Protein backbone atom coordinates (compact mmCIF):
# COMPACT_ATOMS: atom_id res chain seq x y z
CA UNK A 1 0.00 0.00 0.00
CA UNK A 2 1.28 3.44 -0.93
CA UNK A 3 0.41 6.03 1.70
CA UNK A 4 0.83 9.77 1.09
CA UNK A 5 1.68 12.20 3.88
CA UNK A 6 0.44 15.74 3.26
CA UNK A 7 3.70 17.73 3.25
CA UNK A 8 2.65 21.36 3.50
CA UNK A 9 4.00 21.73 7.05
CA UNK A 10 4.60 19.52 10.08
CA UNK A 11 5.99 16.12 11.07
CA UNK A 12 6.06 14.48 7.62
CA UNK A 13 9.25 12.38 7.81
CA UNK A 14 8.12 10.67 11.04
CA UNK A 15 4.88 9.44 9.46
CA UNK A 16 6.70 8.18 6.37
CA UNK A 17 9.13 6.29 8.61
CA UNK A 18 6.27 4.79 10.67
CA UNK A 19 4.31 3.71 7.58
CA UNK A 20 7.41 2.04 6.17
CA UNK A 21 8.11 0.30 9.48
CA UNK A 22 4.52 -0.96 9.43
CA UNK A 23 5.09 -2.51 6.00
CA UNK A 24 3.70 0.13 3.63
CA UNK A 25 5.47 2.64 1.43
CA UNK A 26 5.30 6.35 2.25
CA UNK A 27 5.51 9.41 0.04
CA UNK A 28 5.40 13.15 0.75
CA UNK A 29 2.43 14.84 -0.97
CA UNK A 30 2.91 18.47 -1.99
CA UNK A 31 0.61 18.67 -5.03
CA UNK A 32 -3.02 17.68 -5.54
CA UNK A 33 -2.13 15.56 -8.62
CA UNK A 34 -0.28 13.14 -6.33
CA UNK A 35 -3.54 12.10 -4.65
CA UNK A 36 -4.29 9.96 -7.72
CA UNK A 37 -1.21 7.81 -7.03
CA UNK A 38 -1.86 6.85 -3.39
CA UNK A 39 -4.05 4.37 -1.50
CA UNK A 40 -4.43 6.46 1.64
CA UNK A 41 -3.50 9.89 3.00
CA UNK A 42 -2.12 10.99 6.38
CA UNK A 43 -2.55 14.60 7.47
CA UNK A 44 0.26 15.07 10.01
CA UNK A 45 0.69 17.10 13.15
CA UNK A 46 1.88 20.67 12.74
CA UNK A 47 0.04 23.96 13.07
CA UNK A 48 -3.54 23.58 11.86
CA UNK A 49 -3.85 27.28 10.99
CA UNK A 50 -0.78 27.04 8.72
CA UNK A 51 -1.73 23.69 7.17
CA UNK A 52 -5.34 24.85 6.62
CA UNK A 53 -4.22 28.08 4.96
CA UNK A 54 -1.84 26.29 2.59
CA UNK A 55 -4.47 23.61 1.81
CA UNK A 56 -6.87 26.33 0.68
CA UNK A 57 -4.19 28.09 -1.33
CA UNK A 58 -3.21 24.97 -3.30
CA UNK A 59 -6.66 23.43 -3.86
CA UNK A 60 -6.30 20.60 -1.34
CA UNK A 61 -9.66 21.20 0.37
CA UNK A 62 -11.75 20.07 -2.60
CA UNK A 63 -9.17 17.48 -3.75
CA UNK A 64 -9.01 15.71 -0.36
CA UNK A 65 -12.81 15.85 0.05
CA UNK A 66 -13.15 14.07 -3.31
CA UNK A 67 -10.41 11.60 -2.34
CA UNK A 68 -12.25 10.73 0.89
CA UNK A 69 -15.68 10.64 -0.74
CA UNK A 70 -14.30 8.12 -3.23
CA UNK A 71 -13.77 5.81 -0.25
CA UNK A 72 -9.99 6.29 0.11
CA UNK A 73 -8.85 6.37 3.76
CA UNK A 74 -7.59 9.51 5.47
CA UNK A 75 -5.83 9.60 8.87
CA UNK A 76 -5.40 12.89 10.74
CA UNK A 77 -3.10 13.21 13.77
CA UNK A 78 -3.29 16.24 16.09
CA UNK A 79 -3.46 19.19 13.64
CA UNK A 80 -4.64 16.63 11.08
CA UNK A 81 -7.57 15.75 13.36
CA UNK A 82 -8.49 19.45 13.59
CA UNK A 83 -8.34 19.75 9.81
CA UNK A 84 -10.73 16.77 9.37
CA UNK A 85 -13.41 18.10 11.75
CA UNK A 86 -16.83 19.34 10.70
CA UNK A 87 -16.95 21.79 13.63
CA UNK A 88 -14.26 23.68 15.60
CA UNK A 89 -14.68 25.48 18.91
CA UNK A 90 -13.24 29.00 18.90
CA UNK A 91 -12.38 31.36 16.08
CA UNK A 92 -10.74 29.02 13.56
CA UNK A 93 -12.90 28.17 10.52
CA UNK A 94 -13.35 24.42 9.88
CA UNK A 95 -11.24 23.08 7.01
CA UNK A 96 -12.15 19.73 5.36
CA UNK A 97 -15.47 19.26 7.24
CA UNK A 98 -15.26 15.51 6.67
CA UNK A 99 -15.72 13.97 10.13
CA UNK A 100 -18.92 14.54 12.07
CA UNK A 101 -17.32 15.83 15.27
CA UNK A 102 -16.70 19.02 17.25
CA UNK A 103 -13.05 19.64 18.13
CA UNK A 104 -11.47 21.95 20.72
CA UNK A 105 -7.93 23.10 19.89
CA UNK A 106 -5.13 23.28 22.51
CA UNK A 107 -7.61 21.57 24.82
CA UNK A 108 -5.08 20.59 27.50
CA UNK A 109 -3.44 24.05 27.70
CA UNK A 110 -0.05 25.28 26.60
CA UNK A 111 3.19 23.39 25.87
CA UNK A 112 4.09 22.95 29.57
CA UNK A 113 0.88 20.89 29.90
CA UNK A 114 1.88 18.58 27.00
CA UNK A 115 2.39 14.97 28.15
CA UNK A 116 2.76 11.31 27.28
CA UNK A 117 0.79 8.40 28.70
CA UNK A 118 -0.26 4.79 28.06
CA UNK A 119 -3.57 4.61 26.24
CA UNK A 120 -6.00 1.79 25.46
CA UNK A 121 -7.21 1.92 21.85
CA UNK A 122 -10.05 -0.27 20.55
CA UNK A 123 -8.71 -2.71 17.96
CA UNK A 124 -5.17 -2.68 19.43
CA UNK A 125 -4.56 -5.41 22.02
CA UNK A 126 -2.24 -3.70 24.55
CA UNK A 127 -1.91 0.03 25.46
CA UNK A 128 -0.12 2.43 23.11
CA UNK A 129 2.35 5.08 24.29
CA UNK A 130 0.54 8.27 23.29
CA UNK A 131 2.32 11.64 23.01
CA UNK A 132 0.02 14.67 23.38
CA UNK A 133 1.54 18.00 22.27
CA UNK A 134 -0.67 21.08 22.62
CA UNK A 135 -3.27 18.51 21.67
CA UNK A 136 -6.88 18.95 20.60
CA UNK A 137 -9.85 16.97 22.00
CA UNK A 138 -12.98 15.66 20.34
CA UNK A 139 -15.82 17.25 22.34
CA UNK A 140 -18.71 15.44 20.69
CA UNK A 141 -19.30 13.06 17.78
CA UNK A 142 -22.20 12.27 15.43
CA UNK A 143 -23.89 8.85 15.15
CA UNK A 144 -21.61 7.65 12.32
CA UNK A 145 -18.47 8.11 14.40
CA UNK A 146 -17.00 5.27 16.45
CA UNK A 147 -14.97 6.26 19.53
CA UNK A 148 -11.74 4.22 19.68
CA UNK A 149 -10.17 5.68 22.80
CA UNK A 150 -10.72 8.17 25.58
CA UNK A 151 -8.40 9.87 28.06
CA UNK A 152 -9.95 10.95 31.37
CA UNK A 153 -13.39 10.65 29.79
CA UNK A 154 -12.57 12.79 26.73
CA UNK A 155 -12.43 11.38 23.20
CA UNK A 156 -8.91 11.21 21.72
CA UNK A 157 -9.23 8.64 18.89
CA UNK A 158 -12.19 8.16 16.55
CA UNK A 159 -13.16 6.54 13.28
CA UNK A 160 -15.89 7.32 10.80
CA UNK A 161 -15.85 4.71 8.01
CA UNK A 162 -12.69 5.43 5.98
CA UNK A 163 -11.64 8.35 8.22
CA UNK A 164 -9.40 7.97 11.29
CA UNK A 165 -8.31 10.69 13.73
CA UNK A 166 -6.11 10.85 16.83
CA UNK A 167 -5.36 13.75 19.20
CA UNK A 168 -1.91 12.33 19.92
CA UNK A 169 1.18 11.59 17.83
CA UNK A 170 1.64 7.87 17.03
CA UNK A 171 4.49 8.89 14.68
CA UNK A 172 6.71 10.04 17.57
CA UNK A 173 7.15 6.58 19.10
CA UNK A 174 8.52 3.26 17.85
CA UNK A 175 5.12 1.59 18.20
CA UNK A 176 3.68 1.29 14.68
CA UNK A 177 0.40 -0.45 15.47
CA UNK A 178 -1.87 2.51 14.72
CA UNK A 179 -0.10 2.90 11.36
CA UNK A 180 -0.68 -0.84 10.75
CA UNK A 181 -4.34 -0.30 11.61
CA UNK A 182 -4.50 2.48 9.01
CA UNK A 183 -2.71 0.31 6.42
CA UNK A 184 -5.41 -2.34 6.99
CA UNK A 185 -8.05 0.34 6.33
CA UNK A 186 -6.26 1.14 3.05
CA UNK A 187 -6.15 -2.55 2.07
CA UNK A 188 -9.87 -2.96 2.78
CA UNK A 189 -10.66 0.15 0.75
CA UNK A 190 -8.57 -1.12 -2.18
CA UNK A 191 -10.35 -4.49 -2.06
CA UNK A 192 -13.75 -2.79 -1.93
CA UNK A 193 -12.82 -0.68 -4.96
CA UNK A 194 -11.79 -3.80 -6.89
CA UNK A 195 -14.98 -5.76 -6.18
Amino acid at each position, binding site marked *: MKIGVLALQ*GAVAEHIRSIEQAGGSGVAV*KRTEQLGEIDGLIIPGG*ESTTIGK*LMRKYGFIEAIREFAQAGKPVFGTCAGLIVLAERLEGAEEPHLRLMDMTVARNAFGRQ*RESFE*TDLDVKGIDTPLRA*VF*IRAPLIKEVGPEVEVLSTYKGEIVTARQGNLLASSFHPEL*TDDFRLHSYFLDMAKEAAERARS
Partner: protein
Amino acid sequence: METGTSRVKRGMAEMQKGGVIMDVMNAEQAKIAEAAGATAVMALERVPSDIRAAGGVARMADPTIVEEVMKVVSIPVMAKARIGHYVEAKVLESLGVDYIDESEVLTPADEVFHINKSEFTVPFVCGAKDLGEALRRIQEGASMIRTKGEPGTGNIVEAVRHMRLIMGQIRHVQNLSKDELYHEAKVLGVPYELLLGVHETGRLPVVNFAAGGIATPADAALMMHLGSDGVFVGSGIFKSENPEKFARAIVEATTHYEDYELIARVSKNLGTPMKGIEISKLDRSERMQDRGL
Protein backbone atom coordinates in the same frame (compact mmCIF):
# COMPACT_ATOMS: atom_id res chain seq x y z
CA MET B 1 1.04 10.72 32.76
CA GLU B 2 4.35 12.57 32.35
CA THR B 3 4.94 16.18 31.30
CA GLY B 4 8.20 17.76 30.12
CA THR B 5 9.73 14.52 28.81
CA SER B 6 12.34 14.85 26.13
CA ARG B 7 9.91 13.26 23.64
CA VAL B 8 7.26 15.86 24.45
CA LYS B 9 9.76 18.75 24.26
CA ARG B 10 11.51 17.60 21.08
CA GLY B 11 8.17 16.54 19.56
CA MET B 12 6.87 20.08 19.91
CA ALA B 13 9.74 21.27 17.66
CA GLU B 14 9.03 18.43 15.19
CA MET B 15 5.55 19.94 14.74
CA GLN B 16 7.16 23.22 13.63
CA LYS B 17 8.99 21.58 10.72
CA GLY B 18 8.58 23.11 7.30
CA GLY B 19 7.30 26.22 9.05
CA VAL B 20 8.26 29.84 9.60
CA ILE B 21 8.65 31.29 13.10
CA MET B 22 8.35 35.08 13.08
CA ASP B 23 9.59 37.78 15.47
CA VAL B 24 6.80 40.08 16.64
CA MET B 25 6.82 43.08 18.96
CA ASN B 26 3.12 43.44 19.79
CA ALA B 27 -0.34 41.87 19.49
CA GLU B 28 -1.07 43.47 16.13
CA GLN B 29 2.09 42.07 14.53
CA ALA B 30 1.38 38.67 16.09
CA LYS B 31 -2.03 38.59 14.41
CA ILE B 32 -0.48 39.52 11.06
CA ALA B 33 2.08 36.71 11.46
CA GLU B 34 -0.56 34.12 12.36
CA ALA B 35 -2.82 35.19 9.49
CA ALA B 36 0.13 34.87 7.09
CA GLY B 37 0.68 31.25 8.16
CA ALA B 38 3.48 31.48 10.76
CA THR B 39 3.78 28.24 12.78
CA ALA B 40 4.85 30.19 15.89
CA VAL B 41 5.77 33.72 16.92
CA MET B 42 8.70 34.99 18.97
CA ALA B 43 7.49 37.77 21.28
CA LEU B 44 10.12 40.48 21.66
CA GLU B 45 10.45 44.04 22.85
CA ARG B 46 12.69 44.89 19.89
CA VAL B 47 13.68 42.94 16.76
CA PRO B 48 17.41 42.21 16.40
CA SER B 49 18.10 45.09 13.97
CA ASP B 50 16.65 47.55 16.49
CA ILE B 51 18.66 45.94 19.30
CA ARG B 52 21.75 46.42 17.15
CA ALA B 53 20.87 50.07 16.46
CA ALA B 54 20.00 50.86 20.09
CA GLY B 55 23.14 49.34 21.65
CA GLY B 56 23.36 48.91 25.43
CA VAL B 57 22.19 45.82 27.28
CA ALA B 58 19.37 43.81 25.66
CA ARG B 59 17.25 41.83 28.14
CA MET B 60 14.16 39.61 28.29
CA ALA B 61 11.03 41.39 27.03
CA ASP B 62 8.55 43.04 29.36
CA PRO B 63 6.15 40.22 30.40
CA THR B 64 3.23 42.46 29.35
CA ILE B 65 4.28 42.14 25.70
CA VAL B 66 4.63 38.36 25.98
CA GLU B 67 1.21 38.00 27.64
CA GLU B 68 -0.42 40.34 25.15
CA VAL B 69 0.89 38.20 22.28
CA MET B 70 -0.16 34.95 24.01
CA LYS B 71 -3.67 36.31 24.37
CA VAL B 72 -4.27 37.08 20.69
CA VAL B 73 -2.83 34.06 18.83
CA SER B 74 -3.59 30.33 18.99
CA ILE B 75 -0.21 29.26 17.57
CA PRO B 76 2.72 28.67 19.97
CA VAL B 77 4.46 31.70 21.47
CA MET B 78 8.20 31.73 22.07
CA ALA B 79 10.27 34.29 23.97
CA LYS B 80 13.96 34.99 24.50
CA ALA B 81 16.01 34.77 27.69
CA ARG B 82 19.63 35.89 27.99
CA ILE B 83 22.29 33.17 27.75
CA GLY B 84 22.82 31.80 31.27
CA HIS B 85 19.95 33.79 32.78
CA TYR B 86 18.14 31.06 34.74
CA VAL B 87 15.68 33.49 36.31
CA GLU B 88 14.57 35.12 33.05
CA ALA B 89 13.90 31.60 31.75
CA LYS B 90 11.95 30.66 34.91
CA VAL B 91 9.91 33.86 34.57
CA LEU B 92 9.07 33.04 30.95
CA GLU B 93 8.14 29.48 31.94
CA SER B 94 5.84 30.82 34.65
CA LEU B 95 4.09 33.02 32.06
CA GLY B 96 3.31 29.86 30.09
CA VAL B 97 5.34 30.55 26.94
CA ASP B 98 5.57 27.46 24.73
CA TYR B 99 9.30 27.63 23.91
CA ILE B 100 12.24 29.61 25.28
CA ASP B 101 15.07 30.81 23.06
CA GLU B 102 18.28 31.08 25.09
CA SER B 103 19.53 33.66 22.68
CA GLU B 104 22.74 35.40 21.68
CA VAL B 105 20.57 38.25 20.35
CA LEU B 106 20.25 39.41 23.95
CA THR B 107 23.31 40.42 25.97
CA PRO B 108 24.64 37.29 27.72
CA ALA B 109 24.18 37.12 31.50
CA ASP B 110 26.84 34.45 31.89
CA GLU B 111 29.96 34.19 29.74
CA VAL B 112 30.76 30.62 30.80
CA PHE B 113 27.64 28.65 31.64
CA HIS B 114 24.42 28.18 29.72
CA ILE B 115 21.13 27.44 31.49
CA ASN B 116 20.66 23.82 32.61
CA LYS B 117 17.69 23.39 30.31
CA SER B 118 16.97 19.76 31.09
CA GLU B 119 15.37 20.64 34.42
CA PHE B 120 12.68 22.82 32.80
CA THR B 121 9.25 21.58 31.70
CA VAL B 122 9.18 24.13 28.88
CA PRO B 123 11.43 23.27 25.90
CA PHE B 124 14.36 25.42 24.74
CA VAL B 125 15.84 26.36 21.39
CA CYS B 126 19.48 27.49 21.18
CA GLY B 127 21.73 28.88 18.46
CA ALA B 128 24.80 27.10 17.08
CA LYS B 129 27.53 27.89 14.56
CA ASP B 130 28.92 24.37 14.33
CA LEU B 131 28.30 20.77 15.39
CA GLY B 132 30.20 21.18 18.68
CA GLU B 133 27.99 24.07 19.83
CA ALA B 134 24.86 22.25 18.69
CA LEU B 135 25.67 19.07 20.64
CA ARG B 136 26.77 20.99 23.74
CA ARG B 137 23.42 22.81 23.79
CA ILE B 138 21.57 19.50 23.30
CA GLN B 139 23.54 17.97 26.17
CA GLU B 140 22.41 20.92 28.34
CA GLY B 141 18.82 20.09 27.40
CA ALA B 142 18.01 22.11 24.25
CA SER B 143 15.15 20.44 22.33
CA MET B 144 15.67 22.40 19.14
CA ILE B 145 18.70 23.96 17.42
CA ARG B 146 18.92 26.90 15.04
CA THR B 147 21.86 28.42 13.24
CA LYS B 148 23.08 31.62 14.83
CA GLY B 149 23.67 33.41 11.55
CA GLU B 150 24.22 37.09 12.20
CA PRO B 151 20.93 38.42 13.61
CA GLY B 152 19.52 41.75 12.54
CA THR B 153 21.73 42.10 9.47
CA GLY B 154 19.34 40.89 6.77
CA ASN B 155 22.44 39.19 5.37
CA ILE B 156 22.13 35.44 4.84
CA VAL B 157 25.86 34.73 4.52
CA GLU B 158 26.49 33.73 8.16
CA ALA B 159 23.43 31.44 8.40
CA VAL B 160 24.61 29.73 5.21
CA ARG B 161 28.10 29.36 6.67
CA HIS B 162 26.75 27.81 9.87
CA MET B 163 24.29 25.44 8.17
CA ARG B 164 26.92 24.27 5.66
CA LEU B 165 29.43 23.73 8.44
CA ILE B 166 27.01 21.73 10.63
CA MET B 167 25.87 19.57 7.70
CA GLY B 168 29.46 19.03 6.53
CA GLN B 169 30.57 18.07 10.05
CA ILE B 170 27.68 15.59 10.32
CA ARG B 171 28.78 13.94 7.05
CA HIS B 172 32.35 13.82 8.34
CA VAL B 173 31.27 12.20 11.62
CA GLN B 174 29.22 9.61 9.71
CA ASN B 175 32.37 8.53 7.88
CA LEU B 176 34.57 8.12 10.97
CA SER B 177 35.27 4.69 12.40
CA LYS B 178 34.06 4.02 15.95
CA ASP B 179 37.58 4.36 17.44
CA GLU B 180 38.05 7.73 15.73
CA LEU B 181 34.83 9.00 17.31
CA TYR B 182 36.42 9.24 20.80
CA HIS B 183 39.02 11.63 19.49
CA GLU B 184 36.45 13.61 17.50
CA ALA B 185 34.31 13.96 20.64
CA LYS B 186 37.32 15.41 22.44
CA VAL B 187 38.13 17.81 19.57
CA LEU B 188 34.53 19.03 19.35
CA GLY B 189 34.15 19.17 23.16
CA VAL B 190 30.99 17.07 23.15
CA PRO B 191 29.80 13.87 24.90
CA TYR B 192 30.76 10.67 23.07
CA GLU B 193 27.21 9.23 23.26
CA LEU B 194 25.69 12.20 21.43
CA LEU B 195 28.36 12.02 18.73
CA LEU B 196 27.78 8.29 18.36
CA GLY B 197 24.10 9.06 17.73
CA VAL B 198 25.04 11.52 14.95
CA HIS B 199 27.42 8.89 13.49
CA GLU B 200 24.63 6.30 13.39
CA THR B 201 21.70 8.45 12.25
CA GLY B 202 23.41 11.10 10.12
CA ARG B 203 21.46 13.89 11.80
CA LEU B 204 21.11 15.85 15.01
CA PRO B 205 18.79 14.24 17.58
CA VAL B 206 16.61 17.39 17.47
CA VAL B 207 15.14 19.62 14.79
CA ASN B 208 17.55 22.12 13.21
CA PHE B 209 16.17 25.44 11.93
CA ALA B 210 17.87 28.33 10.15
CA ALA B 211 18.03 31.78 11.72
CA GLY B 212 19.98 35.02 11.55
CA GLY B 213 19.79 37.10 8.38
CA ILE B 214 16.82 35.70 6.42
CA ALA B 215 15.23 38.63 4.57
CA THR B 216 13.52 37.28 1.41
CA PRO B 217 11.48 34.26 0.24
CA ALA B 218 14.52 33.07 -1.72
CA ASP B 219 16.69 33.31 1.43
CA ALA B 220 14.24 31.05 3.29
CA ALA B 221 14.16 28.56 0.39
CA LEU B 222 17.97 28.55 0.21
CA MET B 223 18.19 27.55 3.88
CA MET B 224 15.67 24.74 3.30
CA HIS B 225 17.70 23.60 0.28
CA LEU B 226 20.77 23.41 2.54
CA GLY B 227 18.95 21.05 4.90
CA SER B 228 17.15 23.27 7.44
CA ASP B 229 13.99 21.84 8.96
CA GLY B 230 12.35 25.29 8.96
CA VAL B 231 13.22 28.97 9.41
CA PHE B 232 13.11 31.79 11.92
CA VAL B 233 12.63 35.25 10.46
CA GLY B 234 13.55 38.04 12.82
CA SER B 235 13.80 41.58 11.52
CA GLY B 236 13.12 40.41 7.93
CA ILE B 237 9.35 40.70 8.17
CA PHE B 238 8.48 43.74 10.22
CA LYS B 239 11.44 45.77 8.94
CA SER B 240 10.35 45.23 5.33
CA GLU B 241 8.19 47.65 3.38
CA ASN B 242 5.16 45.33 3.36
CA PRO B 243 5.25 42.90 6.31
CA GLU B 244 2.02 41.08 5.40
CA LYS B 245 3.15 40.30 1.87
CA PHE B 246 6.68 39.36 2.95
CA ALA B 247 5.32 37.06 5.65
CA ARG B 248 2.96 35.23 3.29
CA ALA B 249 5.60 34.93 0.58
CA ILE B 250 8.23 33.55 2.97
CA VAL B 251 5.74 30.94 4.26
CA GLU B 252 4.99 29.75 0.72
CA ALA B 253 8.65 29.71 -0.33
CA THR B 254 9.54 27.62 2.73
CA THR B 255 6.89 24.98 1.96
CA HIS B 256 7.71 24.84 -1.75
CA TYR B 257 11.43 25.56 -1.57
CA GLU B 258 12.12 23.47 -4.67
CA ASP B 259 9.39 25.10 -6.80
CA TYR B 260 11.29 27.99 -8.37
CA GLU B 261 8.37 29.22 -10.48
CA LEU B 262 6.33 29.55 -7.30
CA ILE B 263 9.16 31.41 -5.56
CA ALA B 264 9.40 33.73 -8.57
CA ARG B 265 5.65 34.38 -8.40
CA VAL B 266 5.54 35.13 -4.67
CA SER B 267 8.65 37.34 -4.94
CA LYS B 268 7.00 39.75 -7.40
CA ASN B 269 6.20 43.29 -6.25
CA LEU B 270 6.98 42.62 -2.62
CA GLY B 271 8.44 46.07 -2.06
CA THR B 272 11.75 46.73 -0.39
CA PRO B 273 13.15 44.11 1.98
CA MET B 274 14.85 45.22 5.19
CA LYS B 275 18.03 47.15 4.60
CA GLY B 276 20.95 44.78 5.10
CA ILE B 277 24.42 45.10 6.60
CA GLU B 278 27.58 43.85 4.90
CA ILE B 279 29.25 41.53 7.46
CA SER B 280 32.77 42.89 6.89
CA LYS B 281 31.47 46.32 7.98
CA LEU B 282 30.51 44.92 11.39
CA ASP B 283 33.01 45.43 14.15
CA ARG B 284 34.13 42.19 15.82
CA SER B 285 32.50 43.38 19.06
CA GLU B 286 29.15 43.78 17.29
CA ARG B 287 28.99 40.13 16.18
CA MET B 288 26.22 38.40 18.13
CA GLN B 289 27.21 34.94 16.87
CA ASP B 290 30.38 34.94 19.01
CA ARG B 291 28.34 34.98 22.21
CA GLY B 292 27.90 31.69 24.11
CA LEU B 293 30.11 28.91 22.69
